[in-house]
């Protein structure tokens, strides 16, 4: 008998990878069905919203892999996202236009254009390489120090992108990226990324990282290297955020260094906290809740609620998210579903949840 239960990441409860993969596949199917149903019901005007949700979800899972496994909150994820976005941009602008947009690009980059899937992978790898380079420094820190350092990383990366004019057009808008953020691309990538996050979480690597998260001293005594156990989730987080950046580029088609800064960081952080920072499924829950809320308040700001119309008021969205964040942290700092993960198992009874 197949049962759907909940597993937590505490103690020795290690879920089976196979169960996670099945759950992920199920999630993808349910998600795709839900999205199609929503499209039919709400009309094609909400297509963009579903794409935005998918891209956000990839970014949020990217942060969750780090926070959930290491307990380190990063405010610098947009640095990875920008690396992914610019990499994808450089690789996917049609070769004919590239001469005009980026005239100083090296010839092998200028004359070639890659299709979507290799671009996504390379964008992820580029961000992962950045993560490997900065990781040994960053992973020594936790708490506030890590938060400030990650923000510093964002500022530094932003400065580099603004000044690498030959590759990024500097402060000017980077444009000409094909609009490849289609439903199959975005949700295919999301499914792969969720599977990756789940596999890392239930693997030995994830277990080690969470051991360090919960008790660094005991974990080190047991022979677990603090630095390396944190490094892997960090690199995975970089990879996923880089992929998310590529999707972001495909969705925006035109962007500048300002598209990847603090204003874009805060919603991602809120989504992770909202759903439950210790749960991959929580990342998806948080993304769903906040994306829906943002859409609702955006309409409110423009003065449309269903049949009602009134004058536009700027700032309501921000106000509501601020108040919501404070109340959330007060009432339920562990997020909507805490550290629980859905788990399919083939046994007669699922594990008890405490």
């Amino acid at each position, binding site marked *: 008998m197949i049962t759907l239960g909940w597993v937590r990441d505490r103690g020795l409860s290690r879920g089976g990878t196979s169960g996670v993969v099945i759950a992920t596949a199920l999630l993808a199917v349910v998600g795709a069905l839900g999205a199609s149903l929503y499209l039919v019901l709400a009309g094609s005007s909400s297509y963009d919203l579903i794409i935005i949700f998918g891209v956000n979800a990839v970014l949020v899972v990217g942060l969750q892999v780090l926070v959930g496994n290491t307990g380190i909150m990063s405010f610098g994820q947009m640095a990875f996202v920008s690396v992914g976005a610019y990499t994808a941009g450089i690789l996917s602008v049609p070769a004919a236009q590239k001469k005009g947009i980026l005239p100083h690009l090296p010839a092998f980059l200028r004359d070639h254009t890659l299709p979507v899937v290799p671009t996504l992978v390379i964008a992820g790898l580029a961000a992962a390489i950045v993560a490997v380079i900065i990781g040994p420094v960053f992973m020594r*820190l936790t708490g*506030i120090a890590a938060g400030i350092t990650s*923000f510093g990383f964002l*500022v530094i990366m932003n400065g580099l992108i603004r000044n690498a004019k030959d590759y990024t057009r500097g402060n000017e808008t980077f444009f000409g990226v094909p609009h490849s953020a289609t439903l199959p691309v975005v949700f295919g990538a999301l499914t792969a990324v969720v599977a990756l996050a789940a596999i890392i979480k239930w693997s030995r690597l994830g277990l080690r990282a969470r051991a360090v998260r919960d008790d660094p001293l005991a974990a080190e005594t047991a022979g677990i290297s603090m630095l390396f156990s944190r490094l892997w989730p960090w690199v995975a987080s970089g990879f996923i955020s880089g992929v998310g950046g590529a999707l972001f580029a495909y969705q925006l088609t035109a962007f500048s260094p300002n598209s990847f800064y603090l204003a874009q960081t805060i919603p991602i*952080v809120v989504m992770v906290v909202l759903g439950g920072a210790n749960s991959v499924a929580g990342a998806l829950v948080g993304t769903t809740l906040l994306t829906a809320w943002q859409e609702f308040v955006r309409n409110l700001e423009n003065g449309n609620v269903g049949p009602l119309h009134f004058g536009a008021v*700027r700032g309501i969205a*921000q*106000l509501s*998210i601020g108040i919501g*964040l404070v109340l959330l942290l007060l009432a339920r700092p562990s997020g909507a579903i805490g550290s629980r993960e859905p788990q399919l198992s083939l046994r007669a009874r699922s594990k008890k949840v405490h």
Partner: protein
Amino acid sequence: MTNFIQHLVDALSVGSTYSLLALGLTLVFGVMGLVNFAYGMLIVWSGYAIGLLAGWHVNVVLAVVAVIGVATFLSLVMGEVAFRPFRKAPPLTLLLTSFGVSLILQASVRIIFGEGFRRVPTPSVLGNGLHAGGVRISVLQLVSVGTGTLVVLGLYLLLQRTTLGLQMRAYAEDADVAGMMGVRTERILTAAFAISGVIAGIVAMIWLAKIGTVQPSGDLNPTIKAFIAIVIGGLGSIRGAVLGGLILGVFESFLVAYLPSVLLPYGEALAFLLVIAVLVLRPQGVAGRVVELSR
């Protein structure tokens, strides 16, 4: 040589402002472990207050008092309503809360005053300059260094020579034991936020006189400067905040003066590189008070 002295004067002026910014932030951190990201919004709100007061043609002295009053009031509201319920929370939760608070304060500015820039009127006398042997010192620079010195002195006396100061230091050291020794702990947070607000009001006037305009997102720059300064100096340390601010001022001024022009656009990135180096190599900061950064 004249050039060097000029840069030093500029560095001192900028640095003293950064020190003040850092003081307000570090005081609250010392007491409750909160790195208050919403601190910069006090400066933005003060800016709009200055604009309104100038529009009503309020006397300058009265206006100064009123601006400090506004910042103190906001800081108290922020502390009592938003942060007091979190006083036992881990620092990271506190930091996230302060993100929420800064969103709230920024959104209310947007709703009340709108999106665009506003000019912040300043007394014209501040723009006058004094010349001494080829070095130019503006009145504003003198005022900012002078105010900085006075505030640091005042804060030092408050913390070292008054009962309240003693209680605050005891509370920062160990809140529970301080409570057992008869410190009315619930008042300490109020006092910390009040002092932080007064400092924010003072530094707001100097900061805004230097940049001349205010906008809803104008909090980011002062907040970041204060962050950098307190990390360089050592979180939670008063001496560290002063030193960190001055170091950042010197660093920035001399960077602009002596850096090859290719590297100039990387100014802020280099400042953060310094911050990361300090965090990794000397997490207790320059001033050297050991604090638990990662609870």
